[in-house]
């Protein structure tokens, strides 16, 4: 009967649980309650989680489950009553799933009571209600090897066209076999790179105010063609490379130019065994434009936390206070190590050199990742249907037609399209 159970199988995420043992309530105003955090795993979020865990005490339990698979479990973990997770750390893309299913609560009363230290820009309001507290900004931008560019006599690229010609030069001069890096792994990453390029060409995913798809357009075709040209200069395995692997390629010195997340830029050369020339040559620049456009081909992101709806008001207050301690500016900004982990949206934050790329993205008018209820379905359809084009098995128009067809089927199923 073993075979039947798999038919009912869903993704099971391996999660590492950590319970705070320290009862050091330093600066923490929580006296009792239950706090349980679910969130992504990268250095800045670990810092926030550790700050919240410092609130654990005799009557306060703080659990934190930080995992790359957080999106697969946060919704299920907040739908019960009482919810397993009292707070989810999310980004502007993933708050949508929680909003769609009505599992997070408005924070206006808690902000009025305890949120005096927050900056106005940190408060995410949706339809006039505060639904999340943002603590960091993020964007993808160029990181490169200054030493290799200098050796080839090249300027730092400001557009993807420059990147292509630089890549050609680097290969011809024998400085790098596959000079371009990119998180082009089939699925979420590939779709995100398409979104960047598509917005850079002035594309729009949906018809105004509706869930009708519009990706099979001139901008869509141009975006795919640019991605294809770039992929000629990438490691041939690019469809299996996510941001972790792409980072590894850069650290190993195999890549000279790539579009990478700001949240990973600061720690790029911190790993063991990174060759000295990579450490010395590593440099950060702003995001690139494409096709002569003025808006850079990237998206702006924020990371923040929410509070679950299906928990007692007391637990919600405890959670709010613990998370406020997690993003305590004094603690995060006084330590150089944590201060450089992200572009913190906290009071008193001074940009470190590694934040330059994200700041350039925000200043050059990059578009925030769309917070639309049906964007997740579009992202999934893009991730699954663009691979055939990238492998040269079909034309850009065909691939984008498949994306629209796949999206339409999913959007009808979920009640967004008739």
């Amino acid at each position, binding site marked *: *009967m073993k*075979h*039947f*159970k*798999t*038919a009912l*199988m*869903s*993704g099971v995420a391996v999660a590492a649980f950590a319970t705070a043992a320290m009862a050091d309530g330093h600066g923490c105003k929580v006296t009792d309650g239950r706090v349980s955090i679910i969130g992504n795993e990268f250095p800045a979020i670990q810092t926030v989680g550790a700050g919240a865990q410092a609130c654990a005490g005799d009557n306060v339990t703080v659990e934190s489950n930080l995992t790359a698979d957080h*999106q*697969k479990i946060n*919704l299920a973990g907040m739908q019960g009553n009482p919810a397993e997770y009292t707070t989810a750390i999310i980004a*502007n893309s993933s708050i*949508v799933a929680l*909003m*769609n299913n*009505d599992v997070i609560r408005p924070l206006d009363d808690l902000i009025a009571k305890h949120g005096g230290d927050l900056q106005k*820009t*940190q408060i*995410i*309001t*949706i*339809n*006039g209600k505060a639904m999340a507290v*943002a603590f960091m*900004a993020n964007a993808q931008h160029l990181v490169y090897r200054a030493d290799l560019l200098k050796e080839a006599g090249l300027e730092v690229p400001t557009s993807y066209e420059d990147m292509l010609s630089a890549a050609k030069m680097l290969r011809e001069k024998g400085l790098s076999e596959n000079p371009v890096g990119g998180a082009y*792994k*089939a*699925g979420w990453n590939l779709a995100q790179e398409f979104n960047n390029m598509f917005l850079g060409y002035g594309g729009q995913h949906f018809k105004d*105010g509706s869930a009708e798809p519009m990706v099979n357009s001139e901008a869509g075709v141009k975006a795919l063609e640019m991605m294809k040209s770039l992929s000629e200069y990438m490691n*041939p*395995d*690019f*469809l*299996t490379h996510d941001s972790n692997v792409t980072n590894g390629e850069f650290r190993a010195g195999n890549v000279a130019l790539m579009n990478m997340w700001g949240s990973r830029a600061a720690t790029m050369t911190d790993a063991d065994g990174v060759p000295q020339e990579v450490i010395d040559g590593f440099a950060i620049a702003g995001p690139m434009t494409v096709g002569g456009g003025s808006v850079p081909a990237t998206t702006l992101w*924020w990371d923040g936390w929410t509070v679950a709806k299906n928990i007692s008001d007391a637990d919600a207050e405890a959670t709010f206070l613990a998370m406020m301690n997690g993003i305590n500016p004094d603690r995060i900004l006084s330590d150089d190590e944590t201060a450089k982990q992200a572009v913190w*949206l906290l009071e008193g934050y001074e940009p470190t050199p590694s934040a330059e790329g994200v700041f350039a993205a*925000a200043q050059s008018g990059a578009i*925030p990742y769309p*917070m639309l*209820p*049906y964007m*997740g*379905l579009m*992202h*999934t359809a893009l991730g*699954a249907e663009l*691979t*055939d084009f*990238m*492998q040269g098995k079909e034309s850009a128009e*065909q691939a984008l037609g498949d994306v629209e067809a*796949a999206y339409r*089927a*999913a959007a009808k*199923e*979920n*009640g*967004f399209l*008739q």
Partner: protein
Amino acid sequence: MKHRTFFWFFLPTGLAMLVFIAFPIVSVLMQSVFLPHEAVLIETENCGPFGCKVETAIDQEATNKLREAAPLGRFAGLEIYKDRGHLAFSEVGEAWRTTDSLGAFFSELGDLPFYRAMAFTLTYTFVCTPLLIALGFAVAVGVNSLNQRLKGLVIFFSLLPMIVTPLVGSLILFWMIDSRGVLGNFISYLANDPSLSLKASTPLMWISLIIYGIWSSAPFAFVVFYAGLQTVPQDTLESAQIDGATRWQRIRYVVIPHLMPLVTFVALIQLMDNFRVFEPIVGFNAEAHATSLSWIIFNDLSGETQQLSAAATTSVLTILGVAVLLSPVLVRTWRDFKGGH
């Protein structure tokens, strides 16, 4: 056995099967014929660190009212089964009408997620299963003729692929076939093509997945056949030897017929196991080249918007697929049952 005795004997098993097998299947079936309610959308002004923007959100009050009125959602009948993400009836019909050769028709079919997944799943199932049975049998015969001292050690090593967690096993192989990995490097040296990459080519990726499938499942066949070999009647073997049968003839005419029921057993279990291939696809990051029904279910559930009805429908289709694979043995069992009465 009296009916009464049989009833009490079977009751605990029956209850467990009802709770753990029948109810979940009923629940999946229900989910696959209902859709979420139509979303009531409202325009909202959303503000954050990057300024304010007019966007769309779901009107929770209105949607909750719809949910309360019909908690199961919209009844869709077989709508989801027919849509592009599943059996894609209208797309298949369209492809049939507009293509003029079978090759073009199948290439159109390969563009639809369900048929793309089936193409790989069936190839994987029907290539892996016979090969892993042959390999398992060869290992079993080999081990059986070993010296008693060596046996334990060799059995342990032969079982290792089955002991390793599938996800970990496939990850290890994935790294080995990387163009900078041990195997990948060796293969590109053999092919005399430094730019050869197993991960970038669909046929090579399929072959890697199939080799992994054989490697990881052969120990199961080996264990079963090895146990079976201990029951081969020595008298028959000895008389065959006296009649002058060679080792190969003894295996062909004595051992294999004796083990035939076990071959059927292993074939069935492996057909079903291979039909729901999943871990190697994730471990090999192979979704650009190969997908399976289980992988589609995983993908539907792991996006930012979970597609429960779509996943449930694929689950039902998987159950139907397993039932089709099982049908030969079901028919035979039914015949035996009829014959017995």
